Every structure is written in C-alpha cells, then in structure tokens.
C-alpha cells in the first residue's frame, strides 16, 4: 500500500516538475544576460567593496554597529537589504559608482549628497526619451515638488520588468511605486498641490473609491498595473501618466480575445505564447485567468456545437410531433 502511495506521489511530483520546468528557462536566461559580462573574481571584488557600506547600512549593521560613535536613530532608516540590492538592476555595481568620494570615509562628507550620480550620467539616452514623457505627464504640471526618476524608482531595489518576467512580481513592484503616494496621506501631502478654493492642501482621494466602477478592485491591483490604464499604448512602456479623462475604462481592452494585456504587462512573455493546451493568450494563464481573454477556442466551438445539436434535435422532434398529429387527425376523420 505504502509503495503504491509513494509511486503515485513520485509520479505527481514528476508531472509537477515538468510543468514548472516550462517556466524556468525565461527567468534563468535573463539572469545570464547581465552576469555574462561579470567574472567571478570581479563579482567577488564588488561584493567585498559593498560589504564595507553594508557593515553599517543593513539590519545587521543597525543591530551591531562596527563603531560606537554612530547615531543609530539616523542610521536605522538608511538600512538596505544586501539580498535585495544584489538582485536589483544595479546589483552588480559598487555603491561608490553612484556614491562618489564623500561616502567612502565615515563620517561622510557634509556635501556628499550633492555628488550622488544622477541617472543621466549613465543612462543619457533613456533619460532623454523618458524626460519628454514625464514632462507631459500629470505629475509634471500639478504636483508641488518636482518628480525625479528616484521619486518612483529606487535604484537599490527595482528590477526591470523584462528581467522580472513574472507578471505578479512586476505588478507588485510597479504598483507599489504609485501606491506609496496614492495610498499614503503622509507621502501624498508632501507632493499635493493647494486646493484652489480652500487654499489648504488637496486631500488624497481614496484609491479604491475612485475606481469603484471597477469590480473586484483589489483583485485588479494584484493582477494589472496602474500604468496599464494610465499611460497611452506605445511600443515600449510610456512614462506619460495621463489624467483621469484619458485613462482607460473600457473593460474589453483587457477582457477579450484580443486583450491588450499581451502587448503591455505580458509583452516580455508574449514571445513565448505557445497556446498551451489550446488556450488563447495562454501566457496570461500562468498568473491569471482573465474573463473573456483566456478562453479555449476549441472548447467553445464544441459547446456551441452541443447547443446547436440540442436545438436542432428539439426542433426536429417538435416538427415530427406536429406532422404526426396532422396525419393522425386526417386518419381519424378519413
């Protein structure tokens, strides 16, 4: 009995592994692309250099500071997680590549903050493209404090969507940037403009209330990004956040066979569309079942066929009854 039980379990595990394996290569490949330039020796050097900063700037460092003269209350909010940093876009870089001379010594130089490299120092072309979109965006015209790249992007944490791949993780990361403000009184107030009539700070509209027309609101927050509806559809993700009049409210944009999800959130996976088990938009199915989008064309045809057969059968039966009755009535009269 036990042997049989084990066999069944092993068989089930085997199938599960096979199914899982079909997802792994994409993520593994992306990892290789960045690490290809990196030799193990070089990586070792980077990690060692960064550990000097992490000696203070981590949970460990806050608990067991390497020096007695540190202001722990100031250090605590500056703790970073080495694991998260190592897995981020900039995880293969040394801290000092962005944090220049002033930070290598402690106490840090008084004006060290000014010398933190701006994004455009290394990403000139990207910044040029993105800044134009940001300038056209609602945040450029209305908010009080200027939006910079790091208002949304944490260079120590973020991982770009094309590397993250898993849509649930992309959604969690990208929505967090927006919700940090739009779901927090404190953060929102820092940027909120003054209300024209009352000349007090504009109150933060409740994010769930604004989107009340969207059923299963919380389910959507976990399955799609704010930017899916709040940016114009372009070849690559646009940074232009449009106002509420221009935001997407057509359900069928996502909930139909020609779902825009495959060209937006799932664009990095869409190349791998294999119509698994015959489903349309089957890349979505690994993380969501989306009403109207992830249907099965053959099953649908089968079911429509069953209804046609049923209707035809009933129609024939009914007609036969009418004919039979006419025949019977003629016979009785004749």
């Amino acid at each position, binding site marked *: 009995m036990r042997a049989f039980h084990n066999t069944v379990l092993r068989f089930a595990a085997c*199938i*599960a592994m096979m*199914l*899982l394996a*079909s*997802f792994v290569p994409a993520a593994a490949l992306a990892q290789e692309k960045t690490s290809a330039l990196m030799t193990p020796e070089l990586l070792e050097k980077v990690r060692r250099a960064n550990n000097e900063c992490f000696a203070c700037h981590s949970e460990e460092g806050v608990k067991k500071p390497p020096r007695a003269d540190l202001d722990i209350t100031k250090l605590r909010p500056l703790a970073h997680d080495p694991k998260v940093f190592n897995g981020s876009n900039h995880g293969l870089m040394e801290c000092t590549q962005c944090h220049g001379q002033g930070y290598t010594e402690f106490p840090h130089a008084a004006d060290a903050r000014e010398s933190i490299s701006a994004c455009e120092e290394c990403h000139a072309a990207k910044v040029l493209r993105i800044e134009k979109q940001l300038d056209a965006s609602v945040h450029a015209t209305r908010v009080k404090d200027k939006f910079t790249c790091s208002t949304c992007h944490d260079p120590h944490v973020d991982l770009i969507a094309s590397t993250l791949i898993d849509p649930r993780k992309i959604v969690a990361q990208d929505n967090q940037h927006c919700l940090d403000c739009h779901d927090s009184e404190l953060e929102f107030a820092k940027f909120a403009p003054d209300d024209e009539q009352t000349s007090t700070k504009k109150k933060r509209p409740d994010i769930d209330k604004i989107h009340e*027309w*969207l*059923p*299963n609101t919380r*389910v959507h927050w976990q399955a799609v990004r704010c930017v899916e509806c709040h940016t114009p559809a372009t070849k690559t993700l646009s940074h232009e956040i449009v106002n509420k009049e221009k935001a997407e409210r*057509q*359900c*069928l944009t996502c*909930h*139909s*066979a*020609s779902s825009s999800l495959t060209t937006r959130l799932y664009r990095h996976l869409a190349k791998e569309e294999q119509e698994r088990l015959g489903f349309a938009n089957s890349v979505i*199915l*690994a*993380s*969501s*079942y989306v*009403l*109207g989008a*992830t*249907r099965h064309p053959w099953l*649908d045809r089968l*079911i429509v066929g*069953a*209804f046609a057969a*049923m*209707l035809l059968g*009933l129609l024939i*039966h*009914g007609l*036969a*009854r009418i004919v*039979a*009755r006419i025949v*019977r009535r003629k016979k009785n009269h004749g």
Partner: protein
Amino acid sequence: MAEREYLISPWIRIWHWTNAALILVLGTTGISLHFADPNLPFVEFSLAVRVHNIAGVTLAAAYAFFVIANIVTGNWWQFVPKPPGIVPRLVAQARWYAFGIFRGDPHPHSPTKDEHFNVLQALTYWSVMYLLMPLIILSGLIYLYPQFAPDKMFGFDGLLPIAMLHYLSAAAVLLFMLSHIYLGTTGKTVGAMFKMMFTGWHEH
C-alpha cells in the same frame, strides 16, 4: 379519479419561477461575459458583471432555500425513483418520447400526489439539483471571491480549473434548460404543464 388534482405547493412554484428567471438572467449575462468581444457588443461588460454577480448570489440563496424546504417538507422524496421496476419504467418513458408520442399513445406516467415525476424526470432533476447546481454555485462563489481559489495548479493560475468548472456546468445547466422547456410542451396539451407550474393544479 378526480378531474383535477392539486399537486404543486406554492413554495415550489415560487422557487421554480424564481430559479427559472435567475437562470435566464445568468445565462444571458454569462454568455455575454464569456464571449466578450468589442465587435459583438451584447450586454455591456461591467453591467453584465454586476448583474451576473447579484443574480448569482440570489441563485445561491434560492438554492439554499430549496434544499432546506425540501428537507423540512419531505419533498426530497419526490426525487428518489421508487422500486420496483425502475429500469423498465425508465425504458418505457424513453420509448414514449422516441416513438409513442408520435403515435398519440397515452403518457406512461401520470403525476400523483406521491409521485410527481416519472423515473426519467426524477433521475434528471436529482442530478441537476444535487450534482450540477452545487457545482455551479460553489465554483461561482469562488469565482466571485478569487482569493479563495487555489494559488497555482499545474503551472496555471488556480482560478483556471474553477472557471472551467463554472463554464462547463453552466453549459450543462443551459442545455438542460432547453430540453426542460421543450419537454414542458409534452403534456396533455402544449400548455398544460406550464399552467400546472403556475396554478399548482394538474388536469388528469
């Protein structure tokens, strides 16, 4: 034997027509949602979602009422085919639909107080009410609160099996409904059985 017999109590009739109306609404909105397509607008998507959710929860409530009322009144016994001779009566009923009805043969079964249903009806209704309905209602309720769906299954989202179950059981219910409406016309006259389901009186 009486000309007319009072067979169907008010609660059954009220439940039956409530159920029928809800299934029509759920079928219409459900089809519209499943086949959502910008080129064939049927019921507007978000309206369909709202109507479908409300009707679905009402159907679940109506079903709970049906089950409880069946236990309390003992009406559940009607759904159990009674021996002896279940199989021969089943065959006789099927033969009547296939041949006898065209020859004008009399019904093999006449509803009585103790036996509303012929064997075929009892078996079909039992399966629909106690197998299909729980399936469609349960999958529907999970669909309404996807957080209760399994997280992942075989590398697919856990909502997929729930949604499939819901879709297939819905198709089965609607196929049943078509045949049920049609077989409703096979009474003494075309309208006789519909009339009975409104008035409660069966005309012998």
